[in-house]
């Protein structure tokens, strides 16, 4: 490996070995940190800065059926602890991806999450069909796309349209590969969209995509972005993203979630895990720190170790436990010592609560 410089990695607690593995539908991965779509291209450019086989995997830039040139520049604006982008899904199309990028990912042994984006239900279905027989770890469906058959209405903002896409993708996608729907936060009730996607066969959900914003240049007195509005991302949206994960996990505790939005450190990632995410994705922060996926994975491991947590799985959704659950401060009364597993918490009335499965 070339130089990988990790910033401020917390001191590993040497006595706790942490099992970082997690499960996303039928996919088991040894590490919960992924790169986010559109922030890692197809992995190649990040390889000098990360061992991409050691993290959960790479989520590709959203791939479309045909080549797309994207939008004019300026395509970005920096905002406080974030940025706006209006790239417009530039990419070479799925055939070039399968010829050129996918073989590289396979040779390197990188788990590839393929993000797909279409303008109609049929396009999504065709894209999923093209992934049959391909070594794909997971399919992420970017439904924050305008539906050309419905006046550009974004699929992710309408439960029926979102469900139609997921159902079509689930039908044509390779059956052993989990399908995750990636949701937009720009909706009044994210839980209803989440339910619609899961009802249509989504094996899990990725939360969240960017939220729409804009900047006006006070010099030109015009919008800064050529596309006028753009997607806001970065730590600025982290509390919004965390709230979405929390709400969806509360409503659908058995659905695996990937938490995304402004994750910059291991403890940021831990917040998402505690809110109910089984894994996390790192996006905009990669632009600031190309080795962030590796660093965040190390920091998360250290954060778990420092808390005496031996398995990441044990804390997925843990923040949802009722507030009265605490390890009693007074010593146990004498008598037969109850056998309490490592991962257990004892509530005030003396009941042992374990978190083998997310509560």
């Amino acid at each position: 490996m070339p130089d990988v410089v990790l910033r401020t990695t917390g001191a590993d607690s040497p006595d706790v070995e942490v099992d970082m593995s997690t499960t996303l539908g039928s996919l088991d991965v040894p590490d919960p940190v992924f790169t986010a779509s559109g922030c890692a291209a197809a992995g190649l450019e990040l390889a000098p800065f990360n061992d991409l086989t050691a993290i959960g995997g790479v989520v590709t830039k959203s791939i479309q059926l045909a080549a797309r040139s994207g939008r004019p520049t300026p395509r970005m604006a920096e905002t406080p602890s974030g940025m706006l982008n209006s790239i417009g899904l530039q990419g070479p199309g799925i055939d070039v991806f399968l010829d050129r990028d996918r073989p590289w990912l396979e040779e390197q042994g990188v788990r590839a999450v393929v993000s797909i984006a279409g303008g109609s239900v049929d396009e999504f279905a065709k894209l999923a069909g093209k992934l049959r027989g391909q070594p794909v770890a997971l399919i992420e469906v970017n439904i924050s796309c305008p539906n050309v058959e419905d006046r550009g209405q974004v699929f992710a903002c309408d439960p029926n349209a979102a469900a139609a896409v997921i159902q079509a993708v689930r039908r044509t996608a390779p059956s052993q590969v989990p399908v995750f729907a990636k949701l937009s936060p720009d909706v009044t009730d994210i839980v209803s969209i989440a339910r619609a996607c899961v009802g249509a066969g989504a094996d899990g959900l990725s939360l969240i995509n960017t939220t729409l914003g804009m900047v006006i240049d006070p010099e030109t007195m015009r919008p800064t972005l050529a596309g006028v509005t753009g997607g806001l991302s970065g730590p600025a949206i982290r509390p919004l993203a965390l709230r979405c994960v929390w709400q969806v996990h509360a409503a659908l505790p058995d659905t695996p979630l990937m938490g995304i939005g402004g994750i910059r450190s291991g403890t940021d990632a831990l917040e998402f895990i505690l809110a109910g995410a089984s894994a996390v994705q790192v996006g905009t922060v990669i632009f600031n720190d190309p080795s962030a996926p590796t660093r965040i994975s190390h920091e998360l491991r250290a954060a778990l170790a420092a808390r005496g947590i031996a398995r990441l799985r044990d804390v997925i959704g843990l923040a949802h436990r009722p507030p009265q659950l605490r390890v009693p401060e007074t010593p146990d009364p004498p008598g037969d010592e109850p056998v309490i597993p490592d991962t257990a918490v004892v509530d005030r009335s003396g009941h042992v609560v374990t978190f083998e499965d997310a509560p």
Partner: protein
Amino acid sequence: MPAVQVRGEVLSVKQTGAYLAMTLVASGIAEQTRPGQFVALAVSGDDGSMLLRRAFSIHQVASRGVYGGTIEFIFSVSGKGTAWLAGRHPHDPVDVVGPLGRPFALPKDPANCVLVGGGYGAAPLFMLADALRKRGCRVDFVLGAANADRLFGALDAKRMAATVAFTTDDGSYGEEGRVSDVLPGVIDRVRADVVYACGPMAMLEAVYAVSAEAYGGAGIPTQVAVEESMACGIGVCMTCVLPVIGDDGQTRMVRSCVEGPVFAGDRIRWDALGTVPADTVGAIAAGATTAAR
């Protein structure tokens, strides 16, 4: 060797005319750097609110000596990130990624080379001049800026080049006018074979136009280093694109951080900068919805 990310340390920040020269101790970058490449710096610290990297052309490198590898770049304060950099002191840490981008292509055989720099755009041309002279090339400089204070590297240029022509917009140094006003004369006088340029986009466009018309319209090749807004510098964000004609004659929106910043002048769609020309591969037909995120 690919680019590296290192925790650099500020060695010095010095005023030079209207600019600042920052030298960083950053091992692993100096040894690899070729003329025209750049570094991308993180600003505002590990928890800072400015997330995007700032790109700067590498002016000089020293790969040996007391400090191991050092790199120097020249910058002007143009916004919050460069203001933060200007406030760094010796020993402060700065996270650096580099060297990045495609360097200037060098002629195989000795050739007469004119190097055109605008403002701080002159910074990468001195490493280039060195490399060209080592190959037996003749080097002539044309340096321009808004005023005398913003001319960078006049002394070095005089020391290294056969001749130097200076222009300033206000006439405070050299000839009053633009580099493109004097360039045709320089090309003819030195019998130039190739023009290299770095500076603002409008200057590059004018330099390309002059070079393409040189020798009564025969034209000579140009290598220009462009400056597009960048967020990552390493090729993952797709913000730094411009329309460029490929080997197959097709226009594509190309990332200037990995396929540039140096391009052959005749490959850039100068008339279409800031747009996606209709004949670009994958261009969306006018009027179609394009709101995908």
